[in-house]
């Protein structure tokens, strides 16, 4: 008995040794930067540092709410993020259902391999490709011309920019996002379909009464968990697609923070805007996890 206890304690020591690298990283690269949040409440002067700079309370936040820029940016962020959330739930679902109904099963694998691919390419690459495809003489405008339409300057049209961003995001990720639905579909009890066959149910009826209820939990879970992304409009994508002509509809919190904080070097203001986003997102994600646990029994770990 004594030996087992001793072994356990010895194991324990080794467990903590294994954890050391990850813990050092966690502290150095996640928790230390959090001290920088102080800047949001200061008139930060890099020469004086955190301790020497003047504390100004909520001045940065008051200033932020007065700027019309910030309101536009917030609105753009919400619209783009909301569009993406809805699209990223519905389009992959429809795709998964269609793929599930495909009779030519030998094609399934090829289709999957192809549609997962854009997910693994960066927005730098995809945006470069889109700049070519949607350029004035590019294939998309050639196609429009073929159908007798006027060519469109896609990247310069503020009225089209959000749709463009949402659409290309869905295009990039619908395949990859369908994986989770496809997995859920294989989990549906096949005897339910056989029973429906005996009852004389058609394909539509089976879709409605067997398939959809079978993956309802997955859909609800994904919807709840994506709630936390409502302030996340996707920096990489927007940064690689926007330009001053479309700032009015395309500028989002993250791009705004980048320009204010790191390009114009307004450290304290940039930190304040970023902090507001972090706090709101944190609350929303936490609520999302709580709801998911309460209703679907989902646990993070």
């Amino acid at each position, binding site marked *: 008995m004594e030996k087992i206890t001793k072994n356990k304690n010895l194991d324990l020591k080794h467990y903590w040794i294994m954890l050391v690298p990850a813990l050092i990283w*966690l502290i150095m690269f996640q928790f230390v930067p959090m001290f920088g*949040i102080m800047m949001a409440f200061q008139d930060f002067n890099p020469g004086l540092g955190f301790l020497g700079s003047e504390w100004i309370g909520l001045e940065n936040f008051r200033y932020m709410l007065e700027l019309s820029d910030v309101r536009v940016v917030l609105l753009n962020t919400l619209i783009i993020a909301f569009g993406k959330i809805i699209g990223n739930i519905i389009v992959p679902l429809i795709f998964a259902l269609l793929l599930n*109904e495909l009779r030519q099963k030998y094609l399934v694998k090829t289709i999957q391999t192809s549609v997962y691919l854009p997910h693994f390419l960066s927005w730098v690459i995809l945006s470069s490709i889109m700049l070519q495809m949607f350029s004035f003489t590019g*294939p998309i405008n050639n196609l429009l011309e073929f159908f007798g339409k006027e060519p469109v300057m896609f990247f310069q049209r503020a009225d089209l920019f959000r749709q463009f961003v949402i659409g290309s995001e869905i295009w990039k990720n619908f395949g990859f996002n369908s*994986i989770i639905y496809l997995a859920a579909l294989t989990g549906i009890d096949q005897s339910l379909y056989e029973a429906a066959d005996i009852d004389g149910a058609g394909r539509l009826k089976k879709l409605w009464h067997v398939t959809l209820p079978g993956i309802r939990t997955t859909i609800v879970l994904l919807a709840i968990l994506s709630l936390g992304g409502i302030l996340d409009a996707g920096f990489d994508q927007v940064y690689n697609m926007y330009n001053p002509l479309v700032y009015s509809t395309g500028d989002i919190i993250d791009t705004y923070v980048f320009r204010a904080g790191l390009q114009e070097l307004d450290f304290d203001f*940039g930190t304040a805007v970023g902090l507001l986003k*972090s706090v709101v997102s944190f609350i929303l994600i936490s609520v999302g996890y709580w709801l998911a646990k309460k209703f679907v029994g989902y646990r993070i770990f």
Partner: protein
Amino acid sequence: MVEHRSLGSKIFDVLNLTILVLATLACLLPIWYTLMISLSEKAAVQAGNVSVFPIGFNLYSFESILSDPRFFQAVWVSVQRVVIGSIFTMAVLVLAAYPLSKSNRVMPGRTFTMWAFVFAMLFNGGLVPWFLTMKAYNLLDSIWGLVLAGGVPIFNLILIINFIKNLPEELEEAAKIDGAGPWRYLFEVLLPLLKPVLATVLLFTMVGHWNEFFQGMVLSTQETSYPLQTYIQQLVVATNLENLATLSVEQMNRLLKLNNESLNAAKIFIAMIPVLIVYPFLQRYFVKGITLGSVKG
């Protein structure tokens, strides 16, 4: 079983096949198009004549990349980043995931540590404090800055932990009776069993490092420190977007004649190659890894 199929059902099948084939093409054609642009002659590209096949096939773009040392410098930075970064990430993740898969009873303090990781995953200080920290650590213009910045992806850590927790507990008991300590158990018993989830995480890590441009941009003060994606972002995307905003259509058309789209397309295509190569091999793993890791016992 002979199935009676209605006309509606047959029409649906045809429509369905059409939609799925179109969706597949929508994902493949842009990549194919990029390759075709890179292989076509300049005049045909500028006139917008290239579509599914190259016009005036030539390898000139790829040849001229060979004589561009800045491009190779950027590729070299990216390769270093992927190799060092993946080794670092996988090592730290495996070491951390095993103890964190223990219950709090076996390892007091485990749940608290877990919440610290989850908190760090969900909340961060934001861009500016992060940048000033990296600067204070003297990690600008350094490969280590790029390796360490996203060095421990916490979401992937949780994926591995959940995978370990789904394995039967008897496994470890049996190994312990055979006299295996924690290290031997981790490396000789656990590691081979973790293959699917580790392959998934490795794929995400490698592709993530290869694709990342933002840290490469922010943490570099000089062009020679750029990884490939940052190089492309700065030289192709940023220039293009700037021109879109400041030039008229005529000016842009004139510029287009000077600008070498084929050369850009060749650079973009080369940047895609590693992903195109790695991805099909790991596909079977990542599908399995994602679905297994997301279901917990």
